[in-house]
């Protein structure tokens, strides 16, 4: 089937490009581990406090890092002229976006796994619920960052603009998504706004699983919300792609 081969070829091509770029690969995989280690060090004398925020961080780091890596790389393709060339070829818009999702999704999975293993098995962070759900949630978040990154790159003309999407789109979710303060302690309006942000549900699910022995209905609902947001962002990414310029 042509579309399957086009998606595979595109994903393989992107991964090959990255394999020539050792520095980027090292940054993708190592930076979240270093950041988590720094935080663990900072909470050296109050491990309980670290264990309280640790699960939520597992949602935040893969999300933020995959978002920035994906949005810049996708934009580079648009700016370099290779995108225009592809748009004159038989490859479909969905083939192109799925190819990107597949390649960066794979990196996201590796990154989220590394961060999960560090927190759970190296630092021994205690989690009331099953480990696998926590890891699955970290994966879902990394994939959400990937798909949002692909989507927003459509609205940037330059790499400089794309970098600004990090503070514009990721930071608000970090700040009011429940990482620093529980939503019910916030002003009502702000909490309502936070409920329009996918990361809020990711943080909630991670905290749920850290504090409950079994997987609560809220945790499952939140997981599916995060997945649905990721799928919607990929679909919108493909639909906003334009073959013809005005």
């Amino acid at each position: 089937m042509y579309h399957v081969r086009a998606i595979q070829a595109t994903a393989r091509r992107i991964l090959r490009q990255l394999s020539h770029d050792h520095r980027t690969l090292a940054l993708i995989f190592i930076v979240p581990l270093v950041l988590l280690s720094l935080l663990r060090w900072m909470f050296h004398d109050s491990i309980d406090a670290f264990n309280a925020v640790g699960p939520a961080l597992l949602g935040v780091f893969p999300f933020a890092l995959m978002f920035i890596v994906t949005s810049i790389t996708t934009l580079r393709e648009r700016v370099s002229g290779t995108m225009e060339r592809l748009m004159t070829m038989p490859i479909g818009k969905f083939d192109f976006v799925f190819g990107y999702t597949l390649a960066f999704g794979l990196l996201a999975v590796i990154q989220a796994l590394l961060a999960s293993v560090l927190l759970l098995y190296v630092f021994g962070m205690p989690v009331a619920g099953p480990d696998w759900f926590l890891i699955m949630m970290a994966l879902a978040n990394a994939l959400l960052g990937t798909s949002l990154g692909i989507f927003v790159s459509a609205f940037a003309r330059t790499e400089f603009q794309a970098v600004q999407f990090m503070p514009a789109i990721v930071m608000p979710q970090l700040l009011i998504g429940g990482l620093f303060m529980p939503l019910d302690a916030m002003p009502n309006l702000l909490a309502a706004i936070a409920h329009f942000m996918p990361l809020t549900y990711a943080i909630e699910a991670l905290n749920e699983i850290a504090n409950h022995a079994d997987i609560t209905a809220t945790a499952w609902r939140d997981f599916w919300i995060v997945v649905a947001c990721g799928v919607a962002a990929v679909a919108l990414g493909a639909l906003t792609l334009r073959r013809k310029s005005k």
Partner: protein
Amino acid sequence: MIAMGIEAKGLRVEKAGKPVLDDVTFMVMSGVVTGLIGPSGAGKTTLMRAIVGVQMYQGELQVLGEMAGSASLRPKIGYVTQSPSVYDDLTVRQNLAYFATLLRASKTKIDEIITTVQLQKQAKQVVGSLSGGQRARVSLAVALLGDPELLVLDEPTVGLDPLLRQELWALFAELAARGKTLLISSHVMDEAERCDQLLLVRDGSLLWDKSRQELLAKTDTQTVEDAFLAMVTGGGK
């Protein structure tokens, strides 16, 4: 065999409210090399982008008997942009392998094309490490991969060494002789001497769309450059 390659009637493209192409009408035949000649900023690239289906336009534009931009045209068109659009961080062969999959071209075709553009020695080199001329050849190689019916080349031989330029123009002539349609742009007038048919453009308008011989005869000049000047200053003698 001579057939219709491209036909434009009242073609118009506006960007930011200003016409980039203004009521352009012409025909491009298959089986000959047609040069799209004009100073930079004349609208050459915009016209090429409309033909390959990545530029919106008004008016009529038929390509190989179908409306420009149709999905069914995509496997039949090879397009080379002015600045090489290939992946700098992949090797020559990896670039071609990717585009070959998209264009359903075979592995043997990749080797054949690498030989055509004389990059055998650089095949395993990363494109970013190549010279400007070599990168332009990789970009051209991608366009040749799918054995397209229509080749649209935006300044493909600018900056290449004379010997290679000679060989590429011989290749273009050979492709035309096999019945392909070739539209090749240049702002360098001496490249126009190698074309059978000419489209002369200036400020979004068409000055000429017939054979080079007729142009020289009409303007009573020896070179396309002089003919162009004659057309611009007096509309010919």
